[in-house]
């Protein structure tokens, strides 16, 4: 087992100077783990950019669905609302990447998304909704699987929040498609 060098140095400092350590010194020591937890911003930015790509694909999928003329007015309204959520997720991720000093990923063309998602084979509303459900479920799991890879807790919160939104979308889509409520938990992750 490899010992944490930060913990080790903190212990040795405490052992040697316990009698004379000032309050300011104690506060400085307490600050050490906080700075050490700053982690690897470049790695975090890279991981968040994959999430941006995921959101861009979702935005494109809803756009293709909205333009397909396969959706009823009520369903179209919900699809546009969900697309708006994905745009907000993308913007939040891009802002976080910028704070980390990174550059946000650019979306592909609509035609590329159409090819990659095989949307030419969509024939009816249920087909569109099934594709959306697949993407929303996948996105929920992708976000949950990302949490432990991020160094900074605020970024973990960001992706956990997005995961919750995607699972909400999945629940609504599953209900509209008449899917049974899963009998086993956990449903994701």
């Amino acid at each position: 087992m490899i010992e944490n060098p930060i913990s080790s140095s903190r212990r040795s400092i405490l052992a040697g100077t316990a009698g004379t350590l000032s309050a300011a010194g104690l506060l400085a020591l307490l600050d050490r783990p906080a700075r050490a937890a700053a982690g690897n911003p470049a790695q975090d930015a890279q991981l968040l950019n994959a999430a941006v790509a995921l959101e861009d694909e979702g935005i494109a999928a809803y756009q293709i669905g909205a333009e397909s003329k396969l959706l009823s007015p009520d369903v179209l309204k919900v699809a546009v609302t969900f697309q708006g959520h994905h745009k907000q997720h993308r913007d939040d991720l891009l802002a976080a990447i910028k704070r980390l000093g990174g550059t946000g990923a650019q979306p592909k063309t609509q035609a590329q998304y159409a090819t990659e998602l095989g949307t030419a084979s969509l024939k009816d509303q249920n087909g569109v909704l099934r594709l959306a459900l697949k993407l929303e479920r996948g996105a929920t799991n992708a976000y949950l699987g990302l949490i432990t890879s991020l160094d900074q807790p605020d970024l973990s919160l960001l992706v956990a929040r997005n995961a919750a939104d995607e699972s909400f979308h999945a629940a609504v889509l599953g209900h509209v498609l008449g899917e049974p409520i899963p009998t086993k938990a956990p449903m994701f992750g």
Partner: protein
Amino acid sequence: MPIRRPSLHAAIILFAALEFGAAHAAAPPVRMTAPQSPPPSGSTSRGAEIYETKCGACHSLDQNRIGPKHRGVYGRKSASVPDFSYTPALKKLNVVWNAATLDRWLQNPTAMAPGTAMGFRLTSAQDRADVIAYLKQESAKR
């Protein structure tokens, strides 16, 4: 605005907390040796299901999406799909994807290739075995 200095009382509490933590942290480390058990055998049908729900957000068998297409991945050299734009981390990795390398990768991609864009971890050994069995099966259908 004047900076409030921590009171002596607060400093004593902080010091006591640090001492308590240090005393406990100073205990000899317990050696964690992973048991050498063989990896679980994988179910291709369960692997297909896991692939669809967990990997399917970013990957497809036959289309590059957020990640590269996966048909043929088993037995393939890393970063070798010609029309996919890999991160420098993946270009540097230089492994052949097999049961062992895929297991390591799916367990913690950023540990295997720091700088990768893939952060998704498949934490269950059984899930990894199932997905690997599925990818191996589908790779043979080229």
